[in-house]
């Protein structure tokens, strides 16, 4: 058993669903518990109990700012990645309609599902599709830029495919266009799957906004972060907290825990990356010889390392992915699937894989293995053994 999970008897299993949520880091629960007791005042109050809490929030913000190399006032605590994205997308309703927006076709639903309402509001929207390797070619985006383009959103690491988008190159293309065109373009990126996993520096990337979430890096659920290069006007009014960008009494213990989780994951980012990269190579080596397994995004097909080693997407088609997920769950292995064979929302569920060049059949048989810092080689090997056994059983019925 993974020694890490010894802390959590409830998770006596092989947990390979880190992209959905990472197990809470062992240092976090006590920190939350203590902070709940220690910082009980309302941070907006003017008495000392409240002020102490406010000081603590600002100190946590500074920790995050240092780690992300931003100014503290550029970081807004939210309830998670979805809310961070929502703040940015909903702010578009406060602007004059008629401008042109570009979103990637593989955005998270918290962005993608805005399309209808934005169109109804009067925006013109283009979707930039990735190539068959799941990666967006900046040149394709360049072709879509128009004189009235005002907003672009491209996810940094895709949560289903693991594809790392060339944000830096995309920004260069957009900024060059900006100079010629003379109109500012807001560049947003959902960096939820990037934080603590791959190098991500908002200032160096020269983006305008980015979304993060604590529970993907070992923090608690319900706390997120929004990087904003410059303040924006937002849709939801309130009591002025978080620079009025995200009003509402702050989730103090969440903020404290998030900054700690960020510290813990970023200080080991390089070490963990190399370790996970190795684990991925072990996994791929094992699975490449397994009959009935198809690696959906192969590093070999691209020029450089373009996929997060933390997310591995395979297809066991014609075995339905969800069936395999249930069987593995019964055997103590937690993984996930991007698509469900029977769901009415099937089209929505396979959108990202389909747009990333995966056939419908392969998408139906897709499973996502996502790793984290405590994953081990022993777990990978055990996982492969159990996976192979079950695939071999199921292939009797699914040929």
């Amino acid at each position, binding site marked *: 058993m993974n020694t890490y999970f010894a802390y959590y008897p409830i998770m006596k299993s092989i947990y390979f669903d880190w992209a959905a949520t990472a197990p809470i880091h062992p240092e976090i629960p006590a920190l939350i518990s203590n902070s709940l007791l220690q910082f009980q005042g309302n941070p907006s109050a003017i008495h000392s109990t409240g002020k102490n809490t406010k000081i603590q929030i600002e100190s946590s913000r500074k920790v995050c700012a240092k780690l992300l190399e931003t100014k503290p006032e550029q970081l807004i605590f939210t309830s998670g990645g979805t809310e961070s994205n929502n703040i940015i997308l909903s702010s578009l309703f406060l602007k004059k309609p008629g401008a042109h927006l570009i979103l990637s076709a593989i955005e998270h639903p918290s962005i993608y599902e805005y399309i209808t309402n934005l169109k109804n509001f009067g925006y013109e929207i283009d979707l930039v599709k990735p190539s068959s390797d799941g990666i967006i070619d900046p040149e394709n985006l360049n072709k879509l830029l128009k004189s009235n383009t005002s907003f672009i959103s491209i996810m940094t690491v895709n949560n289903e495919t693991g594809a790392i988008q060339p944000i830096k190159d995309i920004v260069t293309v957009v900024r060059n266009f900006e100079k010629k065109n003379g109109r500012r373009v807001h560049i947003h990126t959902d960096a939820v799957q990037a934080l603590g996993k791959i190098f991500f520096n908002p200032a160096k990337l020269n983006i305008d906004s980015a979304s993060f979430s604590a529970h993907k890096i070992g923090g608690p659920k319900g706390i997120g972060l929004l990087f904003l290069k410059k303040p924006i006007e937002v849709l939801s009014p309130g009591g002025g907290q978080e620079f009025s960008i995200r009003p509402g009494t702050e989730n103090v213990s969440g903020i404290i825990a998030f900054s700690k989780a960020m510290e813990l994951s970023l200080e080991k980012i390089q070490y963990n990356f190399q370790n996970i990269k190795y684990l991925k190579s072990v996994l791929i080596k094992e699975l490449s010889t397994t009959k009935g397994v198809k690696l959906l995004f192969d590093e070999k097909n691209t020029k450089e390392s373009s996929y997060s080693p933390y997310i591995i997407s395979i297809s066991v088609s014609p075995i339905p992915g969800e069936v395999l997920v249930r069987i593995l769950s*019964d055997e103590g292995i937690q993984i996930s699937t991007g698509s469900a064979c029977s*769901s009415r929302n099937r089209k929505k569920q396979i959108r990202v894989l389909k747009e990333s060049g995966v056939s419908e059949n392969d998408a139906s048989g897709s499973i996502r293995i996502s790793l984290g810092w405590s994953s081990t080689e022993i777990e990978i090997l055990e996982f492969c053994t159990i996976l192979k056994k079950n695939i071999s059983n199921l292939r009797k019925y699914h040929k």
Partner: protein
Amino acid sequence: MKNFYLIKIGEISLKKGNRKSFEKQLRFNIKKKLHSPSKITIQRGRFFLESEDDDIENIKYALSTTPGLVSFSRAVRVEKNITDIKNAALSFAKELVEKYPSGTFKIESRRADKGFEYTSYEISALVGEYLLEQLPSLKVNVHKPSWIINIEIRNLAYIYGAQEKGTGGLPVGSAAKGMLLLSGGIDSPVAGYLMARRGLRMDAIYFHAYPYTSDEALDKVKVLASKIAPYLSGLSLFVVPFTDFQLLLKQKAKEEEVTLLMRAGMVKIAEMISKERESICLVTGESLSQVASQTVESIRYNGSETELPVFRPLIGMDKEDIIKTAISIDTYETSILPFEDCCTIFSPTHPLLKPESNKLKNSFIMLEGEKLLKEAAEKTERIYFKP
């Protein structure tokens, strides 16, 4: 007793020689649902319920979901003298005026005891006049009143206001027992409800093909079972592990025959469990030509695989009407939750529409699936849902 209700029965009152057994069954079914001590007396087409139950909503729910009664009203009973009747009517009127401040009213009287000193017309006139005196803002409208106060003169005088709708039909248990094939869809809960209204007691059976069917799909069926349980006067749900038989079909059956042979397997297991449970008919939610397995030819084959009669109460119903009924029994929202069973994996792209019964019967024999079906029946789990 704290609460008193007058209950009107419908179809039971048309019964002659065996009427008492229907009445007894209805009395039993109502009492089964009430939490506190209660007494039900029966008088010529009327049931009178006295209950200690403080929870009026529970009483209303119990009465509105029990097949066999057409309507019910909270009532008071007083001695047969006009002063007491007037006072009782006044207290009802005060409640109703609060509810409909600018409404109009009407008094409807019925004199079963012809010995009473006033005729029905006179009772209505006297009480109406009294109410107008006491509550001057009231207005009479005998054609389209906002509310009605009913007065019935029997052994005592019974006064009641608004009538609430019951389920109608006959009391569950007055017919024999059947087995409802319950899926997670819209139709089968409605089929169960309709047969319960004809007095059929039922168990339900669900075929669970885990891991092809999710546990969420099973949970959904449990919710549906709990929602129809009040109408069915309680039911046992049998959850059959069906995966092995489905996998046998996947391996051995011709693709276009899979759905029909799967349904035949379901019917066979339902029949096995029916025998143990003394059920003597099957109930399904089939509606003619709704899907490929519900063509006349498919239904003919399916029915031929069991000796039990198969009741299909939705056979001639329009989908819209089925949905309306599903909404009225509060199963619709659960049925449309997206946890359909994963039979789609096993469903052929081009299923047979006009199967030849004999050919399919032969295909079923060739499967040699009897052992698997028996094992599935043996491994079946039973879950009871209270009415």
